[in-house]
Structure formats: structure tokens, C-alpha cells
């Protein structure tokens, strides 16, 4: 039975894989040559070759693109550095501050002979990574406050936290992004403006806070009651109990679901495309509007999928190490 199934499945896989390989490899065109692409029966990877600078860096000035490239590598380096448990020390915060400062200098420039580049021209991979990094960096501490608030004995605080968390989790992210792009300007006093990037970042933070708060709450619930009682018996006040006894344990338990939420958030940054920001997916989509190169959407989105996959898969492998 099992052998018959294996043979049948192998045939099915081959039936799907052979045309795919023919399309993606055998008949593919690798040179950035649009007429050759249109004549061929295979994939047009030449499109990616032609557009890779635009896809990765957006409209950042072409001859300055070593700056976002360096910044991207530096940011990825910071994430990898933070992944090691040996580095989970207070000085990690200093490393991040230094790293982000260098990234800011690289991206904006205006010093050390680097041209000033306003953030309207930032785009591509670095924008996706920056939205993720700053979104999580600000949402995570906030989410701890909301999780503690939701478990607080004070009814008003609890009601406010529950209301916020459930409201945000009940609506699509798109509606928050619309809120940020069309309603936020109305909320501000006349004359004040926030640029588009910052508004989208605020919406992403509001969104991530609610989801992370629920994960942190899950960690808090897993802490046995006697931990609270014995730390109270030691004479610790509420904030010392939380800071030195409860949270260190709760957050450690919550690492795998936290990383899963991080992955979800990283994927969700792609939605900023809908309100006109220039993230990685957006640069892919815009590069397809070049009249010389229309009609290669399948190749372009497969490439985008591979880039996102590389980041998400690495993160999910990492979180799995904590599950044992």
C-alpha cells in the first residue's frame, strides 16, 4: 500500500516538477534582454538581473546605493548578533544604539562628505527591515505594559487594556494603515505634519503592540502563582516583582511565540505598499510597470517570495531551537 502510494506520489511530483524545471531553468533567459525574454518559453530571470538594484534600494540615488547596502548588512548583522543568548546582556542595548546611529548616518548622510538623502527616497529591502526593527523595538516594551495592565487588579486599567487589545485585534491591519494615512493628518493641530513613513510606522506599532501583548500575557499566565507569592513574601514591591522575578521567566517562556509574532509582523510590513510606501514588495511591483518589462510578474513575485522566505525561514528555524 505504502509502496504504491510512494510510486504514485513520485509520479505526481515529477509531473509537476518537470514542466517547472523546464520553465524555471532549461528554457529560462538569464540575460537582461527583454525581446529574448518575450521570444523564449521559459522564465525571464533577466528581469531580476536588470531591476535588482531598483528592487533592493528603490529610488535611492544610484551612485550612493552602497550606503543602503551597507546599512542593510549592518541591520541584519545586529539581528544575528542579538540572536545569540550569550549576547543577552545590558550592553546589547548599547550595541543597538550604536548600530542604529551608524545606519541613520549612512541613510540620511549629510555628514562625512555623504550627500543628504531625504527619507522619501528610501526604499526596498532596507525600508522593510527598518519598519520591522523600529516597529518591534517600540511595540515590544509597550506590549509588556499592556499585558501587565490586562492582568492588573485595577478594573479601569484592565478595561482600557482589554479594550485596546481586542479592538486592534478585531480589525484588519489595512484599516489601521488607512487610519494612519488619511485620519492621522486630521487628528493633528493645524500646521503640524508627520511624514508618510512615520505615520505608517505608528500604525504598525499600534498593531504589533496588541498582538505582542497577548503573547506576553500567555507567558505571564504560565508563571506559577507561588512565584508571585514568594516574591511578595520577600518584601518586593509590584515593580521589583515584575522586573526581577516574573518578567524574566515569562519572557523566556514566550520566546517561541514571540518569534512567530515577529515573523508575522515582518510579513505584514508588506502591507504598507497599499498606502504608497516604497518597501521591498512595492519596488518589485513598481519595477513591473516599466513598459519595456511588463508581463514578468510571475518571475518578479517569485523572487520577492524567495527574499521574504529567506528571512522568515531563518527566524522560524531559530525559534524552533527554543522549543525543547
Amino acid at each position, binding site marked *: 500500500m*505504502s509502496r504504491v*502510494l*510512494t510510486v504514485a*506520489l*513520485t509520479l505526481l*511530483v515529477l509531473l509537476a516538477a518537470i514542466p517547472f524545471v523546464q520553465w524555471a531553468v532549461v528554457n529560462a533567459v538569464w540575460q537582461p534582454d527583454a525581446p529574448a525574454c518575450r521570444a523564449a518559453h521559459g522564465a525571464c530571470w533577466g528581469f531580476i538581473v536588470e531591476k535588482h538594484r531598483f528592487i533592493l534600494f528603490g529610488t535611492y540615488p544610484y551612485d550612493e546605493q552602497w550606503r543602503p547596502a551597507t546599512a542593510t548588512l549592518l541591520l541584519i548583522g545586529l539581528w544575528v548578533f542579538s540572536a545569540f543568548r550569550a549576547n543577552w546582556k545590558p550592553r546589547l542595548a548599547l550595541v543597538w544604539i550604536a548600530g542604529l546611529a551608524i545606519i541613520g548616518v549612512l541613510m540620511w548622510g549629510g555628514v562625512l562628505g555623504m550627500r543628504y538623502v531625504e527619507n522619501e527616497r528610501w526604499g526596498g529591502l532596507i525600508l522593510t527591515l527598518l519598519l520591522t526593527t523600529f516597529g518591534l523595538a517600540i511595540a515590544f516594551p509597550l506590549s509588556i505594559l499592556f499585558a501587565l495592565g490586562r*492582568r*492588573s*487588579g*485595577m*478594573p*479601569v*486599567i484592565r478595561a*482600557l487594556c482589554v479594550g485596546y487589545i481586542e*479592538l486592534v485585534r*478585531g*480589525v*484588519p*491591519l*489595512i*484599516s489601521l494603515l*488607512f*487610519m494612519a494615512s*488619511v*485620519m492621522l*493628518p*486630521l*487628528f*493633528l*493641530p*493645524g500646521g503640524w505634519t508627520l511624514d508618510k513613513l512615520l505615520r505608517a510606522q505608528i500604525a504598525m506599532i499600534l498593531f504589533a503592540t496588541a498582538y505582542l501583548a497577548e503573547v506576553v500575557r500567555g507567558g505571564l499566565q504560565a508563571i506559577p502563582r507561588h512565584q*508571585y507569592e514568594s516574591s*511578595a513574601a520577600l518584601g518586593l*514591591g*509590584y515593580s521589583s*516583582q515584575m522586573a526581577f522575578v516574573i518578567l524574566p521567566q515569562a519572557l523566556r517562556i514566550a520566546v517561541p511565540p514571540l518569534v512567530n509574532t515577529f*515573523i508575522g509582523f515582518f*510579513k*505584514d510590513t*508588506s*502591507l504598507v*505598499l*497599499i498606502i504608497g510606501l516604497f518597501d521591498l*514588495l512595492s519596488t518589485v*511591483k513598481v519595477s513591473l510597470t516599466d513598459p519595456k518589462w511588463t*508581463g*514578468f*510578474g*510571475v518571475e*518578479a*513575485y*517569485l523572487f*520577492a*517570495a524567495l527574499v*521574504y*522566505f529567506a528571512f*522568515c*525561514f531563518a527566524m*522560524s528555524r531559530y525559534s524552533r531551537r527554543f522549543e525543547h
Partner: protein
Amino acid sequence: MLAPGKGRAVAYQALALAALVLAGWFLISNTAANLEARRIASGFGFLGREAGFEIGESFFLRYGAADSYWHALAIGLTNTLAVAAIGIVAATLLGFLIGLAHLARNALLRGIATAYVEFLRNVPLLVQLFFWYALITEGLPLPREALEPLPGFFLSNRGIFFPSFSGVPELQGFNFAGGAALSPEFAALLVGLATYTAAFIAEIVRAGILAVSRGQRDAAQAIGLARWQATRLVILPQALRAIVPPLTSQYLNLTKNSSLAVAIGYPDLVSIANTTINQTGQAIEGVTIIMAVFLTISLSISALMNWYNATIAIR
């Protein structure tokens, strides 16, 4: 639990409320001033005005450009509900199949299920929607050369056509007429939502089945049930108790994710509300409608699934 002293607790809560009221007042007064400066009348009065735009597709209800915004939004809502309902059914079926395949004895079947879950879960849904849309509009042939996998079923870059009560699709001019049709937008959204959510459902199903104790399967085998019978009659009914709560949140996610329709041009509620906002400038009302509708849908699905969960719980 372990709140600070009573006096301090009251003070904190009063402070939080005061901050909220103050922030609310600040935002509302700014908004009122801004609306007045831009001469936008607030309120839902605009809903009765003529919408003036066409909607590509609709289920059940009829609509024309001369109808009101209210009418257009109702079409959007039915479109959202249609894609979400069909998507939930498809994602559940596919998800259970892949979840079961994940636990099969056949290594190749397990491998296929693992690869499916890993790849679909780790790519943003929006990328997948664009991919499916590009595949349908660029990869499929013109209606003239449409693929016909089953008699009467046609796959073309203008959509998917299949027989219905009203007749069989036939090529007329540049497109098909008769029968029923799925637009490329609807088809891409449906396939994207169903295959993406199925990957998450598969993981839930797998975890739920693994949570059923090993003794149950041994016992089922001991009384002479075949492997498949044991799964269907003994394991799955017990696993459902662990599966239903997380399954509910996947249904909610699918429904909320259907709002990505706006990116590929399927006229769901969000995309019609977006057009309405652009035409009328009624941003606050538009976003409020989207949020209120999705909150209502979310709460309804939660209530329905809680009821279902209660019926399968151990009494």
C-alpha cells in the same frame, strides 16, 4: 492580582482615565478644526448620495453607478462575506488534508506536506496574492486558447468559467458567455487566502492530533479498527477539542486578510470604502465603517465557534 495600595490604585486609575479623556478631547477638537478648515461636513449623510462608480462584480445584489454609496458598501460587504465564506470552507478542507498528510507513515507524503507548510507560511500573503494574480493574468492563455481541464470548465486570463444552472460557457467574440464565471481577481484572492490559511490550519490539525494520547490509537487498533478508521472515529473527534479554538482565530485571520483584496482590485468592503473615501473625503466615516463591520464579523465568528466548541466539549 497584587495591586499596589488602595489609595494609589485609585489615583493611578483616575490618572489613566484623565489622560485618555484629555487625549480624546485634544484629538477631537483638532479634528473638528481641521474638518471645518477643509469644509468637510462630518456625519454619515453622504451615504445616501449617488456613488457614481461601477463595481466589477457582485453576488446576489444588483448595483449600478447611479445607486447610493450605502448601496455600494453593501455590495462590498457581500463580496467580502462571499470570499471569506468560500475561503474558510476551502482552507479547512485543504488544511485538514495537509495536516493529516503531515502525520502519514509515507515519508514522501510527509515531505510534501512539510514543504507546503514551510513555504506558504513564510511568505507574506500579499506577495502570494500578487503571484496568483500574475499567474492567472499572465500565465493562462487568452479565452480563444483557454485550457479545458474538464468538459465545460475553461481557464483563461480573463477568468475561470464553468457550467451553472443558467447554461454552459461558450466562446463569443473575445470572451466567454453563459454559465458562471470567477473573475481573475476573485480567483486569485480565493486561491491565495485558502492556500495560505490552509498552511496554518495544517499545523493546528497536526498539533491537535499529536495531543491525543498514544493509548487511544493503540486501543482503537486493539479493537480491530484499521488505521484510517481509528483516525476518523477515535482520534479526530478528540483532537477537535484542541483544534477548534486556534482554528477560530485562523477563520478570523482569513476574514481580516480578505481586506487585502484592495491590492489586487477585487471590490470588497475595504476597497469600496477606500474609493468612497477618495471621492468624498469622508475619511473618518469610511475607516469607522470598515472597523465596525470587521469587529462585528469577528465577534460573530467568535460567538459561532464558541457555540460549536461547547457542543463538542466533554460533558
